[in-house]
């Protein structure tokens, strides 16, 4: 039977087990609670250790990239909660925990509380991007909620002073760790919202252990930040520290200095911008003038401006033509009239009594000058005038 089946090599078995484990959803994202033992920090920066409880032990490794971010010094006996995945180390045929994050399992299970609150508030929508308010571009006054001593306030003031002297700064001093710190942070945020003396708030503190930063993981602080109508930038601890406040705030800054950089513009860049705007306006003004000049050039090229007399010339010619036509018309009309007069004169001539006289006829006029047309107009002895073609003479009526 043994001979009939194909035997796997040890390596093949280990690889197979590794593959099975790697495909398990629970094992690839797991939180493990235990006590450190056999702890060894290698010179390479990797950390090798075991996690144990009353009845069992599991080997664990934390590589340098994750180990360097730890905010506590692990040692044998430290109770921890580690996050990571279970994997197989083929060489030894051993499964182990590959840790990527680890917290001290100190007072009241802080890490678990953090995770629980985070899940609860996320479900309520407190982290939703839709609630994030935009920061004012040029705040006249920046409100700071942090301790009055320490690096955080100094860093914030340094950056704000250097970067944008236009913004005033007002500090509301609070406790940033310890029993009453959460209440004091809430009071400060509420004061700013009531008084409205600042346009934007920086809420935070410098680096510390998870216990030191804990007030920024408190639900009351998270809700005060959420309820603030003034935009809030959170700035808690170092780059690697994430608190609930960071998730609720309108913007998370990795450090207090970074928060200061985020809330105000750079004065130097702004001055540069004004300078550019000025140059741009100047160029644009020149461009508008140049455009107008080109339009004028175009107009100048048009015929009416090139030879302004051309139209007048043609008009004049037209006028001349008209005058000529008028004159001709007048002449023709006069000639026609003249012709008609001549014709009428000839007709008149034909009808004239003088023409009849020319043919030997005569007529007589009485002493009154009236033409005698009837014998009743004369009596014997009357003197009459006889008109012939070339003159007249006197005659006496005999009978």
């Amino acid at each position, binding site marked *: 039977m043994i001979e009939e089946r194909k035997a796997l090599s040890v390596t093949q078995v280990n690889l197979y087990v590794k593959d099975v484990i790697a495909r398990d959803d629970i094992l690839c994202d797991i939180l493990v609670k235990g006590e450190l033992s056999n702890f060894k920090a290698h010179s390479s920066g990797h950390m090798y250790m075991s996690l144990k409880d009353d009845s069992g032990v599991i080997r664990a490794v934390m590589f340098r990239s994750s180990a360097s971010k730890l905010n506590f010094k692990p040692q044998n006996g430290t109770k921890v909660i580690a996050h990571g995945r279970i994997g197989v180390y083929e060489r030894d045929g051993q499964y182990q925990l590959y840790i990527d994050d680890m917290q001290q399992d100190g007072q009241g299970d802080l890490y678990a509380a953090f995770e629980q609150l985070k899940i609860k508030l996320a479900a309520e929508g407190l982290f939703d991007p839709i609630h994030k308010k935009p920061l004012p*571009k*040029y*705040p*006249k*006054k920046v409100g700071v909620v942090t301790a*009055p001593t320490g690096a955080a*306030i*100094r860093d914030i*003031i340094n950056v*704000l*002073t250097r970067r944008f*002297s*236009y*913004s*005033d*700064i*007002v*500090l*509301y*001093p609070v406790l940033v760790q310890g029993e009453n710190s959460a209440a004091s942070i809430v009071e400060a945020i509420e*004061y700013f919202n009531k*008084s409205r*003396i600042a*346009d934007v708030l920086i809420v935070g503190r410098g680096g510390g252990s998870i216990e030191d930063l804990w007030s920024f993981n408190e639900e009351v602080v998270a809700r005060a930040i959420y309820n603030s109508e003034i935009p809030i930038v959170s700035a808690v601890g170092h780059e690697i520290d994430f608190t609930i406040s960071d998730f609720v705030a309108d913007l998370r800054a990795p450090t207090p200095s970074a928060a200061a950089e985020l809330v105000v513009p750079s*004065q130097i860049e*702004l*001055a540069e911008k*004004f300078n550019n*705007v*000025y140059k*741009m*306006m*100047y160029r*644009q*003004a020149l*461009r*508008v*003038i140049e*455009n*107008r000049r080109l339009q004028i050039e175009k107009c100048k090229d048009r015929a009416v401006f090139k030879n302004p007399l051309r139209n007048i010339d043609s008009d004049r010619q037209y006028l001349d033509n008209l005058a000529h036509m008028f004159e001709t018309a007048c002449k023709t009309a006069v000639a026609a009239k003249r012709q008609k007069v001549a014709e009428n004169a000839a007709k008149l001539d034909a009808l004239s009594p003088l023409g009849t006289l020319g043919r030997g006829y005569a007529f007589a006029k009485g002493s009154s000058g009236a033409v005698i047309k009837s014998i009743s107009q004369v009596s014997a002895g009357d003197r009459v005038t006889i008109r012939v073609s070339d003159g007249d003479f006197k005659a006496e009526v005999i009978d």
Partner: protein
Amino acid sequence: MSDKNSFEKNLSELEQVVKALEDNEVSLDKMIELFEKGVGLTKECTNALNAAEQKITILMKNRDNGEMTEQPFNAE
């Protein structure tokens, strides 16, 4: 706070002026008017920045009536 309004107002006005200037069809008279306005606004903004005297204060609670007052603060 009215100060803040003037700075922001000037800036947004300046942005509008620049926008209007970008229209190549703007009349010459209007262009000159915009240009002068823009130059004035740029100057005002720059002056506002240069003249700003940053005040740094700390809020102190009055022990008697609990009211908060601003007092000069020196972080050093």
